[in-house]
């Protein structure tokens, strides 16, 4: 009975899952909002680069048909970016961005870093 109650309450706090393309673009949005020097260096961006456009193009998630090879791993790597909040316009701190790249070096490659 208590388990059912917890399930009901948990469901009340979550909505439907976002598509892989939306999740991928969410990461791009957060990285570009923060524009940390570490991220720029890892991703090969310059100050006047079109951050959002380059990253979505490089990763291929500009298409709504985009699919992750492993969604679960990507979500795990994304976790540092939502420490300060899961609102889509929330800019992560540079420490959290650095944490993400140190924990998941493949994220830089995924987004077309050098």
């Amino acid at each position, binding site marked *: 009975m208590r388990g059912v109650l917890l399930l009901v309450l948990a469901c009340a706090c979550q909505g439907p899952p976002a598509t892989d393309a939306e999740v991928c673009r969410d990461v791009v949005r957060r990285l570009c909002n923060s524009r940390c020097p570490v991220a720029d260096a890892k991703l090969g961006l310059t100050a006047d680069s079109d951050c959002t456009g380059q990253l979505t193009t490089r990763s291929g998630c500009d298409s709504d048909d985009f699919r992750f090879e492993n969604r679960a791993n990507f979500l795990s790597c994304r976790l540092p970016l939502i420490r300060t909040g899961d609102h889509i316009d929330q800019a992560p701190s540079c420490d959290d961005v650095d944490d*993400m790249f140190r924990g998941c070096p493949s994220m830089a490659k995924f987004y077309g870093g050098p």
Partner: protein
Amino acid sequence: MTPSFEPRARRPNAALMLALVSLCGCATMEDTTRVERGPKLREFERPRIVEGGVTATITVDPATPSKLTLALSGYDTCRTERVEEFAEEHIRERRGAGAGASISAGVLFTVASAAAFGASYVLSQEPDRSHLDGAGRYGPSEAVQARGWSVGLLCLGVPALAVGFVQWLRTGESTEVVKVEQVAGQRDEVCNVRPIDGPVHLRMEDGSVLGPLPTAGGLVAVEAKPLKAPLDGFVFYERDVALDDGSRSLLIAFNGCAKLVRESVADATALTTGALLKRVEAARACRQVRGDAVQAELGRLEDELGRRREGGEAGTFLPGAKQLKSFEEAVQAYPPRFTLVDGSADLAKGLDALTGQSVLVRGHVQAGLSPNIGVVSYADREVFVFLPPDAPWVSQDFPLGAAVEVVGVVSGLQTVGERTAPLVRAVWMRKVP
């Protein structure tokens, strides 16, 4: 890619809700019982037998005044209790103190739950796309949030309603009428008196205890002779034996006679005034048992007491003794009939032969019992020597162990304290060079 981060995503506060739900089950009932005394139903008497005791009656046959007979009796206490019977109401009141508040809260939460559930169909079904959590899910829609609140409120409201209704249903009072008894009074009587046998101990006035003495047919005989102190009472199986007034009086008389027998007084003048008063008291008490037989002794003692009241402390001289000037004159005035000295043939004389006779005693000072009485030992014997206080020779010092010789008259057997010996009323005493 290997996950190596823990999300800080916010979780629903389900624990708080569960705690609130659990608290609803902690309501308790107040249960009090009140007792009210009702009318008196009846009054009756109830006989009971409770523990009694031991009593005794003392008899002393005047023909054998030195023998006391104790007749022991055991008894029960027959108690009659006056009992009043009452009706008594035991009123049990049970009240749920929080029933009203619980029902109110239950109704409020349940109605709010229903309202939230109803509103969920009006609110938007569109998920909250402004949030994307760690699991890659959007935030819940307004409708889902409303249903979540509805479930939470329902979980609070329903238990509160249940608790409130249970308390409300159990609230009330029940009355039980019982009969109770109250002892309003009681009357005790001695009953079932019967002779009893068992070991009897004698408790003496000096605190010592003698015995046990066996009984036969509830009777025990006590001889005065072996008693070294006045008899104070009797103990039967570590309980004092109760004596009636007559028996108590007889016990005092018996003690008086025993004292007269136990403590010899050859010459009342040799007694201190305190000892004389005690002996007079003993003789007067003994008169209850021995009657006229003790009258002569009592008269002698009272005469001496009267003489002292008129003329002061003891100190009488033998006839003519006060005028004597020397030991030699004393020997001439009271020529010794017997000589009590080591090796003398007179040592074999009995007390009866010596009493009333003039004697010459040669020995050593052994002790001083009082200012007027000393002990002189000779051979393997001793005598008490009574010294007239005003005699001119008394001012001499007679230290312990000093060799002395005494001319005097034997009065008889005298008891001083714990010691008993023949008493010699000295006419003259001097140290032997």
